[in-house]
């Protein structure tokens, strides 16, 4: 187990003539900024996910020079695997959520949806990629529900969730 982790960490040293990890890093930054940025659309995020797949190959082929002491290029080569994981999780979950809510703005789905409010999207690392799963939200307790005006709740909730017998 420890040997595996060590081999994985040291792998970039054994790539002959490998790509500079910094160029993969800057391409990943540019992709996420352009395609999974503040205003998102489905097509752009699908394009980003394709690009992330190609970056995985590039990261596996990234090589580093120099020794093991305080080597930022090596650290980046190791970090990139995690950055790709996070990038994929963000892009996949954002593509799945077909509504706009808070900081997530979909140009192709501009409205906020009461159905989507009932769902969380759980991302898990799986087989070198990210697996997403819709998970229903725990409904709000009756005693808490009573604290709100029904007119306020109607803005966010489906008809079935509203307090019973008052509307």
């Amino acid at each position, binding site marked *: 187990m420890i040997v595996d982790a060590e081999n994985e960490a040291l792998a970039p040293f054994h790539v002959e003539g490998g790509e500079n990890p*910094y160029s993969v890093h800057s391409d990943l930054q540019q992709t996420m900024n352009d395609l999974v940025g503040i205003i998102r659309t489905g097509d752009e995020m699908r394009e980003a996910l394709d690009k992330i797949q190609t970056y995985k190959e590039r990261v596996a082929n990234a090589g580093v020079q120099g020794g093991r*002491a305080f080597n930022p290029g090596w650290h980046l080569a190791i970090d990139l695997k995690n950055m790709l994981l996070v990038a994929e999780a963000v892009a996949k979950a954002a593509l799945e959520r077909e509504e706009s809510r808070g900081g997530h703005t979909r140009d192709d789905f501009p409205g906020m949806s009461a159905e989507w409010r009932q769902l969380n999207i759980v991302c898990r690392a799986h087989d070198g990629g990210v697996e997403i799963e819709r998970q229903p939200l725990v409904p709000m307790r009756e005693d808490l529900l009573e604290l709100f005006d029904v007119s306020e709740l109607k803005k966010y909730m489906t008809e079935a969730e509203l307090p019973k017998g008052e509307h």
Partner: protein
Amino acid sequence: MGYTAKFKVWRGDDEGGALQDFQVEVNEGEVVLDIVHRLQATQAPDLAVRWNCKAGKCGSCSAEVNGRPRLMCMTRMSTFTQDETITITPLRTFPVIRDLVTDVSYNYEKARMVPAFAPPADLEPGDYRMQQVDVERSQEFRKCIECFLCNNVCHAVRDHEENKTTFSGPRFLMRIAELDMHPLDTADRRDVAVNDHGLGYCNITKCCTEVCPEHIHITDNALIPLKERVADKKYDPIFSVASLFRRKDKREAPGATPGGSTPR
């Protein structure tokens, strides 16, 4: 807007190294640390540099730019001419780990030697009362970001490695001064400052004040007042006159203790 600048960066480790030449793109508004990062990204991926906040508040990116100790993130490229060669070297006073990264543990060892704040034993934490003027006095020293540029530039250790055992540098003498000025501190720190931290090594050349990125008046507001407090006790005229007589009384055969190092 952009231009190509000439850089010399010291590269090496504890076994030695040399300045290496680089030509690198510079854009408007950039600072030296941006250029070092561009060097890493494009030409020298294994160039070691310590950095964090890029805003002059973490004190990590200390180095010597054209021989002057500075924070790289706060050194604007616009302060240099476009045909100037900019030389970046690691802090000279501390041992190099690699490239621009030095081992600054000297500073942390000295920090541990400073006796902690000692409020009166019977004073409950909620009952601390201070005048605003007393707060302000030590507040200036609390601006310190511990970049250790002052300890790096101080020639008492910069040019005299052997003094590192006895001298703690401006940073920690300032810390002692801060505690000594604290109205609720009960400890007498004057002997500690002289005996354990080498206050006497300070020649008041104000180099530390000059390089401080937080513009703390280290010499004027911390070191000189501390020296004055020490001198006040050690060279009190009445006390020294009294001790002079006592020494005379106790003097034995002439020339027995040259230099007058008689214990009091």
